[in-house]
């Protein structure tokens, strides 16, 4: 069916609304001129500059480490929380526990950040790399818990029972059967946690300290002094990372789909 003129107009507007700001940012990252709004010809100058900007590179490295570590810790804790929620329908304190899991999803980040800050101050912990990591672990584990929980809800418990029936003790059953089958959910939980940690500004700015400036904080503080093409370049690199991630994810899900279709064909052929 040929799209009507109305349809194509709406589509164009939507795309424009979503992507024009990003396209402008990318285009101007290749701008030779130092002025952000004036096109001065194509150049890779700013990409070279960021390599030599030690502050920016340090911030990127801190962000990567915080992201990896907090995503990993958050994934472990979130998976355990999800298992608890799904496997133990009744235990004392279940309701508050469930509430705590969901709270950071709806809580304004400012409040989460502030309460973390108060906690660290009260406990007399110096703010820095570890405090940001802990704060990010806390808020990302909730997302992981919810993703893993929804997978576990559709998990066929008889698979675990079958393993135990065949002589496999419970802990081994978890690692041989449950974990491999919920792994896709855990991995996507980790990726979401990493992304959330990567672009968090608010919580990080409350909980970080000297020597542990994350990239979003760095960018924000530089922008306050005026947008430079350098910022555009670093943002373009970030966009590149995210785009590659999204493409990989969609290729892998496409592959899974293709394999499913092939399996179905095999099954039908096997039946006849």
């Amino acid at each position, binding site marked *: 069916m040929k799209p009507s003129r109305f349809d194509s107009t709406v589509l164009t507007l939507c795309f424009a609304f979503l992507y024009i700001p990003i396209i402008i940012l990318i285009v101007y990252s290749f701008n030779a001129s130092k002025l952000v709004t004036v096109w001065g010809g194509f150049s890779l100058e700013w990409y070279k500059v960021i390599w030599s900007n030690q502050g920016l590179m340090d911030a990127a490295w801190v962000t990567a480490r915080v992201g990896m570590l907090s995503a990993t810790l958050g994934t472990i804790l979130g998976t355990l929380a999800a298992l608890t929620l799904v496997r133990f329908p009744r235990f004392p304190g279940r309701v508050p526990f469930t509430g705590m899991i969901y709270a950071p999803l709806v809580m304004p980040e400012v409040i989460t950040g502030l309460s973390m800050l108060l906690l660290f101050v009260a406990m007399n912990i110096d703010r820095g790399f570890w405090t940001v990591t802990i704060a990010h672990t806390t808020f990302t584990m909730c997302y992981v818990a919810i993703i893993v929980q929804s997978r576990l809800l559709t998990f*066929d418990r008889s*698979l675990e029972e079958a393993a135990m029936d065949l*002589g496999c003790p419970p802990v081994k059953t978890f690692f041989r059967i449950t974990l491999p089958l919920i792994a896709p959910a855990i991995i996507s939980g980790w990726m979401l946690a990493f992304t959330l940690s990567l672009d968090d500004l608010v919580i990080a700015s409350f909980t970080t300290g000297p020597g542990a400036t994350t990239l979003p904080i760095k960018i924000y503080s530089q922008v306050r002094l005026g947008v430079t093409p350098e910022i555009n370049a670093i943002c373009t690199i970030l966009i590149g990372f995210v785009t590659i991630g999204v493409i990989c994810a969609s290729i892998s899900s496409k592959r899974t789909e293709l394999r499913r279709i092939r*399996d179905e064909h*095999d*099954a039908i052929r*096997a*039946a006849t």
Partner: protein
Amino acid sequence: MARSLGPVKRKFSPWTEPHAVPFIRFENITKRYGDFVAVDNLSLDIYEREFFSLLGPSGCGKTTLMRMLAGFEAPTEGRILLQGRDLANTPPYKRPTNMMFQSYALFPHMTVEKNIAFGLEQDGLPKGEISARVDEMLKLVKLEAFAKRKPAQLSGGQRQRVALARSLAKRPKVLLLDEPLGALDRKLREETQFELMDIQHTLGLTFLIVTHDQEEAMTVSDRIAVMDKGVVMQVATPAEIYEAPNTRYVAEFIGDINILECAVVANTGEVLQPGHPPVVRLDSQGVSIAVEQECAAAAGTSVAFAIRPEKVRISLNQPADVHINAVHGEVWDIGYLGDFSVFLVKLVDGRVVRAAQANVLRLVDRPITFGDIVWLTWPLDAGLVLTR
């Protein structure tokens, strides 16, 4: 699929031998979930090498009973003994039972081969022995060509056979089958029933099967326990269950049956034919019925007369004796099943009695048709009196 001839079936009835020791014993088992009683003070003995069925509608407690034997549920009260040993403190992964799940529960991330080997690996058997046993199992279920496939690449029937092979690989003392054939189509189901019987015979294992399909239970079992609401109604061989059900519930659950409400007219121990049981005389709204049966029902009590449709004779001619075990009515509906025709005969008082007749002759037009006035008769020993 050609079926190999297993060993010749011998007469097998350990439950009739007074000194036989039961292999599995459920002793006064009760299982409660909150206020709901799933299994109610149930006792049951199962013997070695028996093919035993738990038959009943969904929610009758049959699956719960099986899951308690496998160790996935603990009885609220009572004991389960296997070879005289209480299973209470044995976790499922240490019980000498294996289960074939209704959903098959095949591990989707493992190949057929790996699925079958899983249980053997848990026992720490040497590699060579495991692969020999896996090959043997694949051969048993005729899936040699599919060893490297994943469960998703198999048809429903093949998955069922993988599940069977996996649960048999460890040579369990008892194999538990939870609605094993429920997901298969009719033809495949019938073939598989015979295969199951063959395998059970060849390996000499004890099989406990849970099913709601009475035909399946009748075909495969040595004995059947008919269950209702957590209670065993009757435990007997398929033939006994069919020919001598002990209650209306069992009579109506298994096969097709006519039930006529009756009052006992006389139960005096009068013997009509020498060597036969005494006769109970009943009256069902003017129809006089006589049944040869040992029965404790006193005169005046109300009972049910039950008779299977195939034991009711149908004829256009009036019988010689119209006063006993004979009634006439109008053919109201005919169900043509190919091998059998079932006639629904409406009596004068409005009740409907079913009579089935084997279609022995090749005819397209049957002599008895809609609206005909027919006579239904039955011999003295064809029906039975049910007091419960």
